[in-house]
């Protein structure tokens, strides 16, 4: 997006530069004369930004208004009447005040420009992060190969060696959810491995694990495992005191 129109930062900037080109004092300036220069410049500009165009055009309208007022024959009675009626501020005086105020900051900007030329070229080292103490806790800390082997052995020993027949009965997850909740209600805390230890079949194992997951998902129980490969403890949550679950969602 083009920000500056023809190098002017705004209508006041353009107006001020036209006044300065004529080497006249702001307070003495003939707005009528400047208005023509301004309109000429503005009509030669290429408008890329409609908002900015509007700002330049509002200034054009103000200048024209001042010019027209100056051209009209002075009717003092009428002027007094108008002034008394609505306290109309003098648009020319208003514009002069704005120009004077604007010029202070435009000139200040020129001073900053010369500081910028020096300061912005005082280079620092490119920022590279210093070493930061972001030590992430290693979840496998202290675990040895022996522990892994033991974990495997524990896991494989808890699986029944063989199934005499293909189980046809599916154990509904809801049943196991009830079983878990009932045991928890009685004991307040339940170890998952301990609870699974009593399962006679793979099917029962699967539905019990699914039941536990479902209960955790629903927020009925919470589960935590204080150490890797350790016991997973289940606790009833406060809302788990309600009824028994229906079919899992």
């Amino acid at each position, binding site marked *: 997006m083009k*920000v500056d129109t023809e190098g002017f*930062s*705004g209508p006041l900037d353009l107006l001020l530069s036209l006044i300065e080109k004529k080497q006249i004092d702001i307070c003495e300036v003939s707005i009528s004369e400047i208005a023509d220069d301004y309109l000429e410049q503005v009509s030669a500009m290429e408008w890329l930004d409609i908002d900015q165009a509007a700002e330049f055009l509002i200034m054009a309208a103000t200048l024209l208004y001042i010019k027209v007022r100056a051209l009209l024959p002075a009717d003092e009675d009428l002027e007094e009447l108008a002034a008394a009626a609505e306290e109309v501020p003098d648009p020319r005086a208003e514009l002069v005040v704005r120009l*004077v*105020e*604007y010029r*202070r900051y435009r000139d200040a900007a020129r*001073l900053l*420009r010369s500081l910028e030329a020096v*300061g912005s070229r005082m280079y620092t080292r490119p920022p590279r992060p210093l070493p930061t103490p972001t030590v992430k806790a290693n979840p496998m800390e202290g675990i040895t190969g022996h522990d892994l082997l033991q974990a495997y052995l524990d896991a494989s020993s808890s699986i029944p060696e063989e199934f005499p027949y293909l189980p046809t009965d599916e154990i509904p997850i809801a049943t196991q959810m009830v079983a878990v909740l009932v045991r928890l209600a009685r004991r307040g805390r339940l170890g998952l491995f301990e609870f699974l230890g009593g399962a006679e079949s793979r099917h029962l194992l699967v539905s019990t694990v699914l039941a536990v997951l479902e209960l955790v998902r629903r927020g009925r129980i919470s589960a935590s495992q204080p150490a890797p490969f350790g016991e997973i403890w289940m606790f009833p949550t406060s809302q788990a005191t309600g009824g028994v679950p229906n079919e899992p969602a």
Partner: protein
Amino acid sequence: MCPTNPHEAQAAVEAILFAASFPLGLKDIAAAIQVDEDTAAKLLRTLQDRYSRKDSGIVLSDVDGSFILTSRPEYAPYIENLSARQRPAPLSPASIETLSIIAYRQPVTRGEIDRIRGVSSDSSIATLTERGLIAEVGRRNSVGRPVLYGTTREFLMYLGITSLSDLPPLPESEDQ
């Protein structure tokens, strides 16, 4: 670890200033080398004197009470010859005008800036904020609670000055 003699302390200050590429406060420097702030200030002054000699390519700049090593401005062109560095694009006329209003009138609202400039300053404020030269510093307790803008420490570094009191005085309105 703490330095055992003044020379080591001096070298330690230099080392941490070199390693940090952002301005370090007196407190941080004192804490890092385990001396009190008065001692740290003294060490910094000695270092600053050493760097202010003309034969050094580095200056120790004081940015509002924080310290950073920067290259000496005279040698900027050589640094810019390095392919990695490019001469920074100066701010646009609209942006530097907006910056000057914020610098001299802070804290100031968008409305006041627009009124002085006679144009909308939205894109300039966005650019200056993005470059870290200005920041929102609060809200005015008036209708709509408009955001107030002020300059940042980055602004001081950008102009190579120590504090806002180093800004050139705002030109007087000679016609009044």
